[in-house]
C-alpha cells in the first residue's frame, strides 16, 4: 500500500517535471542563444549550452531596440498609472454608488473588453488622426487608458465590493461625501488592489503589439514588441539577434512576474470575470 502510494507520488512529480521542462523550453532556448558567441550560433548546436557567458547577441540587438525599449517605458508607466487611477474611481462607483442601470453599464463595459480590437482599428485610426494624436506617444497612452477602462473597473469593483457597506454608511453619517469616502476610506485600503491592477496593466501594455503597430507607424516611436517583430523580419538568418531582442523585450515583465507573482496571480483570477 505504502509502496503503491510512493509510486503514485513519484509519478506525479515526474509528470510535473516533464511539464515544467516543456514550459521552460522556449525560454531556455532564448537565454542560451542570447549568451552565445556568433561563432557558436549554428543550427546543429541549437540546443547546446553556450561555452561561456557572452553577450554577442545582446550587443547586436540592444542598439536596434534600445530606443523602442525606452518608448515602451514612456508609454507603459503613465498608461498603467492613469488607467489604474481611473479604474479605482470607476470600481468604487460600480460597487458603492450603484444607480439605476449601473449594472447594465458594467456588463456593457465587460462586453467591450472581450471584443477583438481588430473590430475597431479603422475608426480608431480615423479618430486619432482627427484628434491629431495619430503616430504620437500621447495617442498610444490615450488608447491604452481607454481600453483599460473595463478591466480596471472590474478588478477594483470586485475588491471594493468586499468593503462592508456599514463602513460606507458610517462615513456618510460622519459627513463624508462621495469624494471623502473615496479619499479616506477606499484609497487607504486599496493598496493590494492597486498593486494587482498596476501589474496587470503594466504587463498588458508592455506586451501589446497591435495598438503600438497601428497607432505608431513610425519605427522610431514604436514600442519594444513592434521592434522585436521587425528584427525577426529583417534578421532572418542571424537568429541570435532576434532571440536576444525577444529576451530584452520579455525581461521587464518576467522580472515583475517573478518579484510580484502573488499579485499577478490575483489579477489573473480577477481578469477572468468570475473572480
Amino acid at each position, binding site marked *: 500500500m505504502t509502496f503503491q502510494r510512493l509510486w503514485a507520488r513519484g509519478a506525479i512529480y515526474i509528470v510535473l517535471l516533464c511539464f515544467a521542462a516543456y514550459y521552460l523550453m522556449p525560454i531556455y532556448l532564448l537565454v542560451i542563444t542570447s549568451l552565445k558567441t556568433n561563432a557558436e550560433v549554428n543550427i546543429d548546436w541549437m540546443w547546446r549550452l553556450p561555452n561561456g557567458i557572452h553577450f554577442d547577441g545582446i550587443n547586436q540587438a540592444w542598439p536596434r531596440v534600445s530606443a523602442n525599449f525606452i518608448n515602451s517605458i514612456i508609454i507603459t508607466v503613465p498608461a498603467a498609472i492613469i488607467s489604474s487611477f481611473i479604474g479605482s474611481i470607476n470600481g468604487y462607483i460600480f460597487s458603492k454608488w450603484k444607480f439605476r442601470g449601473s449594472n447594465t453599464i458594467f456588463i456593457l463595459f465587460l462586453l467591450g473588453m472581450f471584443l477583438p480590437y481588430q473590430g475597431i482599428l479603422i475608426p480608431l485610426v480615423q479618430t486619432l488622426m482627427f484628434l491629431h494624436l495619430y503616430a504620437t506617444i500621447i495617442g498610444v497612452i490615450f488608447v491604452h487608458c*481607454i481600453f483599460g477602462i473595463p478591466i480596471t473597473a472590474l478588478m477594483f469593483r470586485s475588491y471594493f465590493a468586499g468593503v462592508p457597506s456599514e463602513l460606507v454608511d458610517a462615513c456618510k453619517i460622519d459627513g463624508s461625501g462621495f469624494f471623502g469616502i473615496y479619499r479616506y476610506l477606499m484609497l487607504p485600503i486599496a493598496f493590494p488592489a492597486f498593486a494587482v491592477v498596476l501589474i496587470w496593466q503594466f504587463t498588458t501594455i508592455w506586451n501589446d*503589439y497591435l495598438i503600438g503597430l497601428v497607432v505608431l507607424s513610425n519605427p522610431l516611436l514604436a514600442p519594444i514588441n513592434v521592434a522585436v517583430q521587425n528584427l525577426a523580419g529583417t534578421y532572418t538568418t542571424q537568429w541570435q539577434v532576434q532571440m536576444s531582442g525577444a529576451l530584452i523585450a520579455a525581461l521587464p515583465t518576467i522580472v515583475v512576474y517573478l518579484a510580484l507573482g502573488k499579485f499577478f496571480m490575483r489579477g489573473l483570477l480577477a481578469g477572468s470575470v468570475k473572480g
Partner: protein
Amino acid sequence: MQTTNGRAVSGDSGIAAVAPASRARRRLSWLRGDRALAVLVLSPSIIAVAVFIYSFILWSFYISTVKWNDFVPNYTFVGLENWITIFSDSRFLTDLRNLVLYAAGFMSQCIILGFILAVLIDQKITGESIFRTIFIFPFAVSGIVTGVAWRWLMRPEAGLNLLFHSVGLDFLRSPWYTDPNTGILAVSVAGAWQFSGYVMALYLAALRGISNDLREAAAIDGCNTFNLYRYVIVPLLTPTTFTAIVLTGMGSIRVFDIPAVIGTGAAFGADAMANYMFTLTFTSLKYALGATIASVMILLSAFLVVPYLLSMRREAEQ
C-alpha cells in the same frame, strides 16, 4: 435596495420619502447629491467606452458597406458587395478554415493541459509554488516573444525536429507551420503554451473552492479517485470550464501576434483572420474589405460572449 439603504441612513432622502413629492421628483430622487456626483464622475468613462468601442464597432460595420477600397475615403454605399468579395476570397476562406483548426487545437490544449496541471498541482505537492510559477509565467511573456521562440522551435530543419532526431524519435518530426493544410495547428501549440497556465490558474482556484467534506463523503461512499473526479469534481468545475471555453474561444478569434511573427506559412496554412484584416487594411489600403473582416470577427465574438455575459448577469441578480 440601494435607495432604501440610503433613506434609512441619510436625512435628506428620508424627508423626500415623507413629503408627498411629485412623481417626477421621486423618480429623480436617486439622482441627487452624491449619487448624481457619482454618475457625473463615471460619465467620461461611459462616453469613452460608448464612443471608442460601441460606436467604432458600428462604424466598422458601416465602412464594410461602402466603396472605400483605396487611399482616398469614399463613402459611396455598395450594399453587401464587400461581404460577397470577402466570402469568395480564397485567403479569407483559408482563414476561416484556419480559425476552426486553431480553435480546436488551442481550446483543447488549453483546457486539457490546464485541467491536468491544476489537478496535479492540487495533490499537496512539495514545491507547488515553483511549479505554479513555471506554468503561469508564459502568460507574462508577450505574443511576439512567444512567436520568436516558437518559430525557431518549429522550424523544420531546427528546433524540435532536431531534438527528436537526436533522441531517435524521428517519427515525431513534423513540417509544423510550413504545412499548407495544418500549419495553423503548430501556431496553436505556441498559443497554448502561452495561455494554458492561465486556464490552470482558473481550475486551481475552483478546485481549492471545493470543500474537503465532499471529497471525504465520496471516499466514504466507496468512490475511488477516478470516479471522484468523474462524478464529483468535473461536474462541479463546469462553470470554470464554461469560462475557459469562452476565454480560449475569444483568444482563437483574436489571435494576431504569434502568426505575425511566424508568417502566413505555405499557401496561408498558418495565417489568421486578424492578420489578413491587418494586411488588407494597412498594407493594401482596402479599408472596406478590412472593415468587413473586422465585422466578421466582431460577430463571431459576439456569439461567444453575449450568452456568457447574460448568464453571468442572471447569476449576479439571483
